[in-house]
Structure formats: structure tokens, C-alpha cells
């Protein structure tokens, strides 16, 4: 069953898992610094299991935002997972309990690794191994980051500089994909910066979605 092709797919998938695990340390530390407990941080990583959203939720809380604003930013950011799942559904052909498990594993990395393969069998291998690898490392590193973060003051270790840099790292590959992306990003950043003094924390991030109006190509795309 283990062909050279299959082991190459598995190796790549696990490599992605290990690399992504590094985000987990930052998330765990940021989460306890925002006031969540170690248990709460770990539950988010186990069951919400979508890095950008988790970072956004604790980021808004750390900035003094309310529960509503934190949840709204998180779920807006997580909405892409629905589209990922729709792309994966015909590829994975999952039913019953396996579908419930596949849903949990539907994230940026597993989707990117799966849709990169022309052969459906390789795509399925890539999906499950990437999702599994990221899951293990993301959760382990969240736990370690949260424990360390609760022992020391994370600001001493520059966590307040790490978090915006982490968001930038998530943003960068999207910025490289086009001019419209750059315009939307600058627009979103500008809206947020201007609103900080005038609105409750959390609102500037939500309002930044208005920058989508700058996506000129959106009007040209036919329904």
C-alpha cells in the first residue's frame, strides 16, 4: 500500500504540521496573556482548531474588546473554512463519523495540501496526514505556550511585538498574490487605525471589512 509517491505525500504533510506547530506556542502565550486560562486556550486549539480565528479572538479580548466583537471577528475570519469544506467534500467522499472528523480537520493547510494533488487518492492522503500532523503539533505547542505564558510575563519576551508580526506572517502570502489584495490590506489597515480612538476595542477590526469595497475586480466577476 505504501508507494514511494504515498510516502512523499505523507512526508510533506507532516512537514507542514511541524512548521505550523510553531504558531501554537505564540497562540498559547498570547491567549493566556489575554486572560484566558490554560484550559480555555487548549480547548480552543482542540475544537475550534483554526489558527487565524483563534488569534483574532484572543487579540480582540487582549485589546479590551467585548465578547461580541471578538466572536464576530473570529467567525468572519473563519468563514473561509466553509468554502474549503465545499471544495473538499467531493474529493474526500466522507460520510458519518468520518465526516465529523474531516470537518474538524478542514483548515488552510490541509485544504492547500489536498487540492494540490491531481490524483484523488493522494489528495485524501495529503488531507488526513496534514490535518492530523497540524492537529498534534498545534495542540502540543498551544499547551506548552500557554503553560510558559502563565509562568512568566509574556511582555518581557516581547509577545506584544510577536502577535502583530504573526498576523503579518499570515497576511504576507495573500499580499503576494495580487494588487487588489494589497489595496484591500492597506484599506483595512487604514480604517482600523483611524477608528481606534473613536470606537470600542474590537470594532476597528470589524469595520476594516469595508475595505472590500476597494476590491475593484469583485464587480467584474460575474455571478
Amino acid at each position, binding site marked *: 500500500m505504501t508507494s514511494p509517491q504515498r510516502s512523499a505525500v505523507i512526508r510533506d504533510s507532516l512537514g507542514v504540521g511541524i512548521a505550523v506547530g510553531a504558531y501554537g*506556542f505564540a497562540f498559547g502565550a498570547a491567549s493566556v496573556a489575554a486572560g484566558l486560562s490554560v484550559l480555555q486556550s487548549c480547548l480552543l486549539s482542540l475544537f475550534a482548531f483554526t489558527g487565524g480565528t483563534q488569534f483574532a479572538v484572543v487579540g480582540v479580548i487582549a*485589546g479590551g474588546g467585548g465578547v461580541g466583537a471578538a466572536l464576530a471577528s473570529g467567525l468572519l475570519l473563519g468563514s473561509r473554512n*466553509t468554502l474549503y469544506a465545499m471544495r473538499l467534500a467531493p474529493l474526500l467522499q466522507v460520510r458519518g463519523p468520518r*465526516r465529523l472528523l474531516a470537518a474538524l480537520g478542514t483548515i488552510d493547510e490541509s485544504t492547500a495540501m489536498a487540492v494540490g494533488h491531481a490524483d484523488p487518492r493522494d489528495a485524501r492522503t495529503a488531507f488526513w496526514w496534514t490535518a492530523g500532523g497540524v492537529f498534534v503539533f498545534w495542540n502540543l505547542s498551544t499547551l506548552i505556550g500557554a503553560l510558559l505564558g502563565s509562568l512568566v510575563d509574556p511582555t518581557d519576551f516581547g509577545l506584544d511585538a510577536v502577535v*502583530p508580526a504573526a498576523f503579518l506572517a499570515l497576511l504576507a502570502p495573500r499580499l503576494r498574490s495580487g494588487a487588489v489584495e494589497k489595496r484591500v490590506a492597506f484599506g483595512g489597515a487604514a480604517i482600523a487605525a483611524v477608528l481606534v480612538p473613536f470606537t470600542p476595542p474590537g470594532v476597528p477590526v470589524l469595520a476594516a471589512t469595508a475595505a472590500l469595497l476597494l476590491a475593484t475586480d469583485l464587480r467584474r466577476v460575474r455571478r
Partner: protein
Amino acid sequence: MTIWILVGATIAGCYLQKLAGYLVPAHVLDGPRVRRLVELLPVALLAALVVVQLLANGRHLVLDGPRLTGFAVGALAVWRRAPFIVVVVAAGLTAGLLRLV
């Protein structure tokens, strides 16, 4: 208590968003326009999060030297396409060391 509500709602919301994609028929949301919109949404949100995490302290805009410098070093690493762990360590170490001196 409110944090527990947030944690529960985030978990439920995130999981249902994922599951919904497996349950709805493919054509419901899958127009090119919706796909593009969902592609661009994280761009606006992440850019706003960068700015807010970098400059906001509650409702005040603050320019914190170590934070800005640490972020700049991290941004340089991102620009050089360094692995994420390098970005994190570079940003954190810079800001942390600047606070020590």
C-alpha cells in the same frame, strides 16, 4: 464566565462553519463572486489586526519603541520569507532585549 461563553461560542461557530461546507450542496455558495469575497475577507481583517495589535492600547494609539522595533525585525523576516518560527523569535527577542536595556 463571559470568557467561557466566548470559548464555547467560538468552538461551536468554527466547527459549524466547517461542517456546513460538507452538508450544503456545492452550488449554494460557490459562485466566483462569493469565492473572491471570502478570499479577500481575511486580507482586510488580518491587515486590521496587524495595525491594532501594533498601535492600539485600548482606545489609544501608542508608539511603543520596543514593540515597534520588534515588529519591524519580524516584518523584515517575513519579507525575507523566513520560516514562521524565525519571525516569532526575531520579533520577540528584539522587543524583549530592548526592554532589558
